[in-house]
């Protein structure tokens, strides 16, 4: 099963390679890893997407917790969480295909961020499923290059009443 694991780590030299090394050294899958500083520059947040059966996931979490520079490990998979990925997709585009592409981009609420006589670059944000869906739709036009960030995720917080689905959040579920 696919799991989304969120880590709070010390923002130090070499932490990233400790974690990447753990995955490669122990033969754990890593579908994506995403890192960035938090509001406190001493810490970084990492989001790792990995796949494995329950025993493997349990090991991954325990092994991550053993790393001295790792402060907190949360498996978000079974918690209500928001996850997003961003992708830039550069694809072939001629005057005959442009309209169809723009339609697809609109449906996914993506954006065109660069254009040339023969190409278009699309920016899309959403769950990894959504990103995959638009990639699949654009494939027939001929994708030249693609850059994906990998997933970032945070646990949702409730105010005690019903969840506050802001319009922005709903959009992202397309």
């Amino acid at each position, binding site marked *: 099963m696919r799991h989304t694991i969120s880590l709070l780590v010390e923002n130090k030299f070499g932490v990233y*390679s400790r974690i990447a090394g753990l995955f490669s*050294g122990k033969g754990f899958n890593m579908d994506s890893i995403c890192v960035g500083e938090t509001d406190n520059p001493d810490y970084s947040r990492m989001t790792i997407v990995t796949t494995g059966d329950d025993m493997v996931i349990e090991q991954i979490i325990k092994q991550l*917790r053993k790393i001295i520079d790792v402060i907190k490990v949360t498996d978000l998979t079974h918690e209500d969480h928001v996850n997003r990925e961003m992708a830039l997709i550069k694809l072939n585009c001629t005057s005959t295909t442009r309209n169809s592409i723009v339609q697809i981009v609109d449906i996914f609420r993506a954006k065109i961020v660069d254009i040339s006589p023969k190409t278009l670059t699309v920016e899309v944000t959403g769950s990894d499923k959504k990103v995959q869906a638009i990639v699949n739709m654009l494939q027939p036009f001929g994708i030249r290059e693609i850059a994906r960030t990998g997933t970032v995720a945070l646990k949702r917080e409730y105010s005690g009443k019903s969840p506050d689905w802001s319009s922005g959040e709903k959009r992202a579920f397309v």
Partner: protein
Amino acid sequence: MGDCKMEKVKEKEVAAAPKKKKEVLSGADILIRALLAEDVEYVFGYPGGVVIPIFDKLYSAPRPKVVLTRHEQGAQHMADGYARSSGKVGVCLVTSGPGATNLVTGIATSFMDSVPVVCLTGQVATAVIGNDAFQEVDITGITRPITKHNYLVRDTADLARTIKEAFYIAGTGRPGPVLVDLPKDVLISQVEFDYPDKVDIPGYKPTGEGHIQQIKKVAEVMAAARRPVFYVGGGCITANAAGELTDLARTAKIPVTTTLLGLGAFPENDPLSLGMLGMHGTWYANMAVNECDLLIAVGARFDDRVTGKLDDFAPKAEVIHLDVDPASISKNIKVDYPVVGDCRKILQRLSPLAREADTADWLKLIGHWKQTHPLKYQKSDRIKPQYVCEAIRKVCGEKAIITTDVGQHQMWAALHCGFFGPRTMITSGGLGTMGYGFPAALGAALANPDKKVVAVVGDGGLQMNMQEFATAVGQRLNVIVALFNNGFLGMVRQWQELFFGKRYSHTCLEYTNPDFVKLVEAFGAVGLRVDRHDEVVPVLEKAMSIKNLPVMIDFHIDRHENVFPMIPPGQMATDIIE
């Protein structure tokens, strides 16, 4: 009351007095002050370019004492042997580049067996790191998967805190090696010295003393079992919990088997002792695990040399697992009752709750197995290695510390020496590092000047770190090196005999082995050779009488002897060959 007032007055005085000025020291001086603050007695080291500033300071410092080895691998193994035999953190100090890479095998050895060692390596100046400078190597990168943690110190201001953290991390929780890489300029720059008395590492809080509800549950399960067995690993010794374990096993009347690293956690002359289990374990220990209804693992990690085929390991048992490392629990085998924490503290809380289990029938059955399937070997005029092991224990005494190298002799020592107290068996279990046994004995001897230390080694492995005879002679350490000379890489030869149709590919050393007696004499040590069975005890006695010099005894053992019992790799307990 009066005292109280006095205190207050004093406090005021202190507050009024100007703050004591902190000393400004170089990184090298700070390092030595830090080692003193950590009560380090010995540093096992080897100098080189970038660490000359440290060695220069050590030249005039009365402590720590430097033990100059002849190879950095020797330094790491000595620090490891020192740590295993004393429970203290071992320390080694080497130069950058090749000095650092020469530690790697030793660090991995310490890591696999959870041994607390702080490895100090020199590094090129921070300004040239990454430039492929002379003797530059990314040692923190290289050792990342084989250290508990490692540091590259980039600023002298961080040095004191880093050393404090390194010792703390190495010695607490599940111990392990911690490497600190020290660039040359960091050793030379000067800052105010301030050694912290506390550490605060947000991501490192070694786990406590076990959950009490879970401990209560464990006590109940233990009392209800009819065929329980303790399966005790090195973690029990590391946690200084051998005494607690022994008391508990005796109160609850539960038999005990230990792993290779657990030898000594429970006295083997106790009727409840089953000796070692696993690939070369006793018949009755393996059978007890196969038939038990409750397996109580204490500081053990279900290593494949113990379990064999996982699905068939302890097939009828529920499993209790006490361990300081949560990641060890349910890693290989599903555990029914995990308790995470320091083994000693857990056992201390478990003991008052434990009741005597109804194990009379079980112990009777085990007694029967011990009689019908004892450890055995053929008596002969030739020197049987098993006999040498028995003789070593007889002549050198119960308290003697035995270190081993890796191979057949290691298994014979494990099975036939007999172990009666913790920290008396020092051996490389997890990594199985040939070349470990002799230097480890030197570290153990320095840590235990009041104890006899015997290194049981093979003719293959001894040649991997022979050079340390110079260190042993220099330190006037009177360790006994019992060389089990069979002219073969015996353990590999045994596998070739059993599983590769007796094709002895590159395992015969006979014609190219040196004359070991002459060789150690060239180092200034004493060399004795034994060819006959009846000379074994007298020669050991003679070796015991020699003071202040290492003695090597070249036992020419029966060359074709094999280690049994043996469970062939990947098979189950009932496939055991006796």
